[in-house]
């Protein structure tokens, strides 16, 4: 396995797996950098070898040159030491230089993949997740992984190698002292294991708390107007402070744990050195060891200390990286439940049972051949939709056909499921029963990009992106000409865009110029119009417009809609005027279909939805 980055998803053993195995599963992301990793490792090992060799040279200088008062030997040995030193520095330069770009690249790929994956997950997934939890995964968790991949991974290998090499050297210098020194590894391992068990829990808790905190921060930022309007900033700050305090508590327990861990890592090797000193002194006094040998031995033994300390650091950062990997995989392991054809046939349990699977599903769709006849026709067949985990379906049995070129307005009380019904068309959500057909093809059989080209959507709450007006309008039609853009803006009564400071190049959206609700809605409408879809789906597109503008838009929209199949949600008689036919949605079914006047006369419920008797007396 593990050929490519996307591979890890198929090897998914969903969630719950141990953090370390989660980290291990991310290894394909390091694959493109294996040469770099290898060279890092080689350079690091070389540097470490040089660092170990220097004390050995020291020994020969003290024992050889100095003890024998041989000045001639001193210089070449000194030069050799300097040479080794330079080599060490050069190798460490190589290691760090390579490391920086390799792990930054890995983090980038991982972040890009996470982002792309999140974009492909259906809106229902995002509704169920706190946004801060997603954000903290894409930022702090990925940095934890990067830090470990760059530093921890290589050093884990180096530490172990260094330790072994030094231990072997020590044993060769003096076998019983060497053995005594190497034995200190046993208690260290015991402590590390105990530490790891406890640290793991805290690391995960901190990361989850970080996500919760990020959610509060995000709400505080995006909901600032509401908080201000109601004067609830103190309460929001209190909630935030309480959450931040929880994190403080966890972090302090983490520091306490680290404190005792580090002190043990200090204590054990230094105690070993003390022991070596005593043993060594005894050995020297019995002439079993030279003084130079003792100095070299202790210098070398000190080289045993840092791998152990580093091991603690690596362990801590590894633990963080592992739980971070676990959190990231929780996302990457979530398969989009709304996907293009192949995956949706491979993944039937979600909607399999209720699904009225056409016999010809897996053959090259014959419906395509049949489509010209029903081109542009939109139909709902016994559509049922229920939110996961809720007993009552929102839509229970919706059957409805919008003929080619027809404009059908759907109306119904607040919460009757109108918006839900619209979202089924471009598959922002999937039916839980029945099917939705465009031109005779089940929308689930149309590849997503194609489907979303066929269908244009105008949202109730207009979402504009941080980009120029032009780019915002051209989302659905990247190849549109300037004249087409102008026509769409004109139809949507959004010509005001030409008067913005930089005309159509003015940046709007979150990071750009703030537009009023009505202006946003008209730009979004122009976007839906410009896309020239076969099927246009509009969710209360005129709610934020004033009477004048609404009138003008309605008139222009009437022309645009003339040749387009359109499904429009409306609350107002003025918008209903666009309709060829009107459907009343009530209790999850289509209660009635007819013209505005027919329904007004025959359906008391419709009449109550559409008349404002109190005012229009």
């Amino acid at each position: 396995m593990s050929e490519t980055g996307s591979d890890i998803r198929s090897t998914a053993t969903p969630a719950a797996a141990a953090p370390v195995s989660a980290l291990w599963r991310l290894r394909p992301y390091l694959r493109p950098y294996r040469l770099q990793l290898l060279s890092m490792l080689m350079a690091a090992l070389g540097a470490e070898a040089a660092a170990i060799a220097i004390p050995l040279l020291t020994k020969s200088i003290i024992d050889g040159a100095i003890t024998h008062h041989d000045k001639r030997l001193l210089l070449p040995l000194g030069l050799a030491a300097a040479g080794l030193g330079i080599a060490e520095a050069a190798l460490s330069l190589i290691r760090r230089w390579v490391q920086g770009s390799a792990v930054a690249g890995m983090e980038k790929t991982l972040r890009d993949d996470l982002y792309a994956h999140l974009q492909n997950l259906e809106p229902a997934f995002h509704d169920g997740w706190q946004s801060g939890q997603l954000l903290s995964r894409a930022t702090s968790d990925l940095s934890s992984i990067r830090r470990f991949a760059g530093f921890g991974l290589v050093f884990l290998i180096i530490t172990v190698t260094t330790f072994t090499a030094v231990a072997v050297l020590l044993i060769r210098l003096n076998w019983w002292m060497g053995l005594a020194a190497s034995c200190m590894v046993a208690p260290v391992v015991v402590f590390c294991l105990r530490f790891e068990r406890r640290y793991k829990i805290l690391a995960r808790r901190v990361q989850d708390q970080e996500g919760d905190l990020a959610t509060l921060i995000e709400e505080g930022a995006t909901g600032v107007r509401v908080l201000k309007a109601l004067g609830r900033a103190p309460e929001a700050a209190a909630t935030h402070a309480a959450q931040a305090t929880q994190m403080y508590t966890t972090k302090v327990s983490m520091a306490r744990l680290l404190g005792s861990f580090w002190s043990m890592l200090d204590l054990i090797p230094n105690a070993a050195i003390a022991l070596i000193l005593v043993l060594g002194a005894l050995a020297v006094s019995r002439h079993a060891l030279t003084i130079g040998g003792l100095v070299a031995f202790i210098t070398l033994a000190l080289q045993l200390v840092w791998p152990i300390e580093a091991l603690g650091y690596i362990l801590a950062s590894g633990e963080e990286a592992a739980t971070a990997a676990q959190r990231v995989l929780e996302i990457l392991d979530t398969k989009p439940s709304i996907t293009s054809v192949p995956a949706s046939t491979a993944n039937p349990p979600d909607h399999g049972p209720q699904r009225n699977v056409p016999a010809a599903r897996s053959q090259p769709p014959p419906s395509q051949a049949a489509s010209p006849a029903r081109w542009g026709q939109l139909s709902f067949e016994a559509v049922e939709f229920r939110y996961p985990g809720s007993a009552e379906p929102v839509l229970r049995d919706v059957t409805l056909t919008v003929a080619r070129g027809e404009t059908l307005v759907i109306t119904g009380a607040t919460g009757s499921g109108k918006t839900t019904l619209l979202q089924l068309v471009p598959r922002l959500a999937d039916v839980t029963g029945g099917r939705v057909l465009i031109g005779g093809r089940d929308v689930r059989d149309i590849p997503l990009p194609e489907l979303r080209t066929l269908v244009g959507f105008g949202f109730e709450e207009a979402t504009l992106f941080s980009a120029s007006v032009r780019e915002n309008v051209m989302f659905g039609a990247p190849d549109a000409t300037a004249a087409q853009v102008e026509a769409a803006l004109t139809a949507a009564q959004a010509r005001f865009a030409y008067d913005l400071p930089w005309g159509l190049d003015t940046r709007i959206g979150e990071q750009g110029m703030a537009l009023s609700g009505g202006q946003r809605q008209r730009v979004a409408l122009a976007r839906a119009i410009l896309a020239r879809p076969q099927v246009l789906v509009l969710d209360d597109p005129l709610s934020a417009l004033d009477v004048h503008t609404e009138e003008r838009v309605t008139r222009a929209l009437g022309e645009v809609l003339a040749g387009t199949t359109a499904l429009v949600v409306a609350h107002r008689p003025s918008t209903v005027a666009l309709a060829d036919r009107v459907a009343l949605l009530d209790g999850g079914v289509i209660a009635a279909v007819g013209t505005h006047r027919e329904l007004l006369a025959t359906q008391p419920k419709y009449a109550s939805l559409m008349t404002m008797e109190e005012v229009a007396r």
Partner: protein
Amino acid sequence: MTGEAAPQPAGLQWRGIAAEKVDDVSAPLAALLRRRSRGLLTDLLRPHKRGVMTTAAAIVVASLAALAGPWLVGVAIDQGIPPITSSGDAGPLTWIAAAFAVTVAVQAVATRSFVTMTGRVGQAVVLELRRRVFWHMQALSVAFHESYTSGRVISRQTSDIEAISALFEEGLDSLISAVLTLLLVGTGMLLLDWRLAVVVLAAFVPLTLLAGWFRNHSAIAYRRIREANSLVIVHFVETFGGLRAVQAFRREHRNEEIFDELSGEYAKASAWSSRLNAVFASGISLVANVVIATVLVYGGVLVIDGSMKVGVLASFLLYLQRFFDPLQDVSQFYNSFQGAASALEKLSGILEEDPSVPEPAAPLALPAAAPPAPAIPRSAASPALAAPPAPSSRTPATTLPPPAAATSSALPSFGRRVRFESVRFGYRPGGSGGSSPREGTAAVVLPDFSLDIAAGQTVALVGETGAGKTTVARLMARFYDPLAGRVTLDGVDLRDLPNAVLRREVVLLTQESFLFEGTVADNIRLGRPAASDAEVAQAARAIGAHEFIAALPLEYQTPVGKRGGRLSAGQRQLISFARAFIAAPAVLVLDEATALLDIPSERLVQAALRTVLTGRTAVIIAHRLSTVAIADRVLVLRAGEIIEDGAPADLLGGDGEYADLHARWAASLV
């Protein structure tokens, strides 16, 4: 304020967030940023003086104990071994070994306590910083948020604060102990042998140059990293805030391109900074190793000449190792240090940013208006909102001027008088990042606007998009301050009212029905945190939201999910309406607050409004003229000026703008 820049004295120019966009800063600016960051850090650390002292003491003890080791090794070689070899006397060596054992134990205890202490102090500082920044962000004006963008607000409080937290977690102790070790080891080496020490000190010439070079470059690198990081966050937040539109318009691919670019810039910035780091760290290694070789040769010569003992050379060599190791540590941790430093620069900038809508320095109390004005006026006339709770439970966490708090009771409200006195206002265009110095080019929305709304009056504002209706509403809620003139509440300039009082008296409800994480009840209670469950349900009933809430799986305790995902737009609007109803302010401003409701819901809301607005001042903006029916007075706005003003019936009778609007609207109903 940032931005109104140009003619200001240098220095002031860089107040607040203005310096954020600058990548390669000039020397005086860098110094200013450093000073500002240092000021903030000192301020944050002040309450922890004792903790910092204890920590520093523990670090000193730990370092001293650690340094005693090599010295004791030298002593053992020179004075412990000879007695054994010569006379078999193990006494001196035993003592030395015992001393060594003690230092090891001391070192362990001190290490433990300083790691724990740094954690505690560091996290306390981080907690305080989080609270300050969050609070300050909430205090900053809407205008600030609109130009700074929520993504940046978020990234300041997430990744920037995390960078500071990381400094305390991994950086600070090694920095302190490194400096200490350098000093102590340096002294120790001087005492051991001054000639060798001079060799070592000579190494400081290249080291200082190297450090200077590194400091300059890495400061820039880290600024770049933080900026790139916040752009990544901004784009991330924006994408997933509008995911439905992203998917419906197949924006995924373009978004991936943009994200790839931003994330690539971030990766490049971090790679560059780690390269700087690579050069710095290996530079130190190089100098260190050359010095060790030199000491070895020179020391060897000295020993051979008999002017130095072997033990001294051994100690010296061991010390050398300790001398350069911390420098390596410093370079390792310079990462977190620089990261924290540039995060601190940005955060101190935010904290320095003055709210353009500031709290009054000398707040004025509202007059205890004619018939006794309650702090939270409450309509006894509204059956739906009867039985207010005990006065004390109303306003938690806010400090009120005593007179206002004292009189709060179930007395009927009479609203408050609102006056606009020759108000001039315009928005600044474009402005992202708050650094555009174009104050002069503000597009004027209200050239000279005067309006007097009597207490208890319900006024409808109508007019075309862009006429300035929303601006009037926002000025009333003090989202902005007028450029000239003033807005008063019962004669008191809004700028002189403490925020807590203003928000209690004036509530603005817009079309933006933002729901927060939590239950339906939590969201309604946002209007008045102390409200009981029964009151929450009453408010919901009053505006006709009870039915759909009761049908939810857990009724009022149903979590709304992110941004109220599962609720329809109309339902969300009803919930935010319930919020405003339960807040029951003296002045209620509704800006298109019913736009997304269906007609039956609007009818219910209107029926509720009729009772609730009795005895309250209200301003209603609505494109649907249905709402106007309940108004006492209608104002028609065009281009920031009032062109018609009168009772609805009177205006309807004439042939003015309103009569025309109404005719069109009535026609649209059928």
